[in-house]
């Protein structure tokens, strides 16, 4: 597609990629003009902290959406992984390594289950199976904690959520940057990464080219679970508490981040940096609405609208692309 019409398309593509960044800059300018508190060091640090949990989940969600799927259970996975760590300290296991490993293990495992349900049991589109697991994992989180929050994590576990490096940049945001660079390299420079794009672009073609589609899908859902566990680690660090009801809107925010960032719902298209911009935009929106004094209820309305509009733009873009392809074919 890129080379079909020469430079013109490239120019358009750059513009469409810069669109979300432009929106982020515009919203930030509007907010800094609107409220004095927005452009302060304290608030910027705060935004970075707030963005990091969503950014980690959104990175996992992005890979799932790249394969043409969706994971509606991310919020429950995050809560479940946090609660597994919580239950460990409740039972007197304070070894940070053991805690972190068990959290990651729990998240990755339930992500793996999502992948198994989708592939081995040949369920239809994953939204129905992940709606099911969303309830199952949430139920598990409530069950193992007896529905009460658990606090008192060791300092080392809290560090990723609370620590600062320099200039007040939070450790959690540094983790996001490092993970995103890692994912960028993974998606662009490894065979598996390219395969993920291939599966999302055309599943049947990928299978006929000899890719083990099921294996790739299972890995992607497991990675998504792993990223949710990472978010859970930052979350319990930040709050020093594992909440079984945490992350109830995480799926919405993560999906919104991906779609705003230009990850196509139809699969096969999108970049990790777009997702980062989308995640920052969502966080800035939420932060700004808070500063303006809009209620949490208003935020629900805004985020919901943003998702629908972003997907609609994606659909329009896809149909415009299909049209230009058809026209090119006619010539």
């Amino acid at each position, binding site marked *: 597609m890129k080379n079909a019409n020469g430079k013109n398309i490239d120019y358009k593509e750059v513009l469409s990629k810069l669109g979300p960044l432009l929106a982020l800059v515009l919203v930030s300018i509007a907010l800094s003009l609107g409220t004095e508190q927005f452009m302060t060091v304290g608030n910027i640090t705060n935004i970075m902290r707030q963005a990091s949990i969503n950014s980690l989940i959104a990175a996992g969600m992005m890979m799932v959406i790249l394969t043409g799927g969706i994971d509606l259970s991310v919020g429950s996975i995050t809560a479940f992984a946090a609660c597994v760590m919580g239950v460990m300290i409740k039972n007197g296991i304070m070894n940070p390594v053991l805690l972190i490993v068990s959290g990651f293990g729990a998240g990755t495992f339930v992500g793996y289950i999502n992948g198994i349900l989708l592939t081995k049991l040949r369920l*239809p589109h994953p939204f129905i*199976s992940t709606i099911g697991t969303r309830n199952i994992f949430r*139920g598990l989180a409530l069950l193992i904690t007896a529905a009460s929050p658990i606090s008192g994590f060791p300092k080392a576990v809290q560090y990723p959520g609370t620590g600062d490096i320099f200039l007040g940049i939070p450790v959690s945001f540094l983790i996001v940057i490092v993970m995103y660079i890692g994912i960028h390299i993974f998606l662009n420079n490894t065979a598996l990464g390219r395969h993920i794009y291939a599966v999302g672009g055309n599943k049947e073609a990928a299978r006929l080219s000899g890719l083990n589609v099921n294996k790739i899908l299972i890995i992607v859902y497991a990675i998504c679970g792993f990223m949710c566990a990472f978010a859970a680690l930052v979350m319990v660090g930040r709050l020093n508490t594992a909440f079984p009801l945490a992350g109830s809107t995480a799926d919405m925010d993560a999906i919104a981040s991906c779609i705003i960032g230009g990850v196509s719902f139809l699969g096969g298209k999108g970049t990790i940096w777009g997702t980062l911009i989308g995640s920052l935009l969502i966080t800035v929106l939420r932060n700004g609405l808070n500063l303006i004094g809009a209620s949490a*209820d208003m935020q*629900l309305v805004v985020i919901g609208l943003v998702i*629908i509009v972003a997907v*609609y733009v994606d659909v329009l873009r896809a149909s415009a692309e299909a049209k230009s392809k058809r026209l090119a074919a006619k010539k």
Partner: protein
Amino acid sequence: MFKKLSDNKIKESIERNNGGYFNLHSLRELGIFIVFLVILAVLMILSPNAFARPTNLINILKQASINGILAAGMTFVILSGGIDLSVGSTVALTGVIAASFAHPGEYPLFVPIILAAGAGSFIGFLNGLGVAYGNIPSFIVTLGSMTIVRGLALIASRGQPVFNLSKSFEHIAGGFIFEYIPHLVVFFVCVAGIAGFILTKTVFGRHVYAVGGNETAAKVSGVNVGYIKVAVYTIAGFLAGIAGLLLASRIVSGNPTAGAGYELDAIAAVIIGGVSMSGGAGKWYGTVIGALIIAVIGNGLDILGVSSYFQLIIKGSIIIVAVLLDMKGKGKQ
């Protein structure tokens, strides 16, 4: 080969659905009915004193009613090949709206009823427009509207439940016919009956199946696909409005956080009832049995003292197993 495939699909769709209004010859629905009877029998044996009491059985019917009404609307949507995740939030918003206009001595009773039904229909209509003419996947449109409508419910009620409702409003769901049959159940039976009639006896109903079975085939056969899609979401929204009204009347308050997770129960009822997730196949009375099964399981687990967290896990598993059976059935064909 492609043409042959779609021909087969149409044939299969016709074969599965030409049973008419009520036809238990179909193995699938008969199987579900037997499962229902077995669950009922097991619970009666396990808990003869608490579960099998007539008051509890009527209670189960009441519990099944609101979900059953939502599931009837969901049946239309899923038959057309879509999904509606916003019905739970719509229940909350329409409940708040109905309750706000049902304080004693303010408005006549028809005002909250019409407003709730109207608001629900309007939300469904917008969902339908997004799916049919925006070409946005249904679960995205309704995931978005689920969030938006929940926000609107919270804003409209300022986060507080709306109390102080008139006796006549409370009577809508709380009343009885012939002293024994709760109004709720009457509503459920009427909705299910009308939905069944529309699906099996009207051109519109057949078109819903056609759109879900093979959208392209339906379109080239002259079915107005966009219109059908908008209509099914509007029906689902309308019934969610009715359910919101009934819930507000039943709990005698308009609660903005009510109905969370109701979409799940409704989807579960539909899928358990044998309606195919990919659309175009399934029976309305399957949904009725599905709603009864969910109510019986919920009630039975409550009586047996199973925690609500564990029930969440069981509900999630039931959905997955039901979808699994659906896929297995298709594999055989």
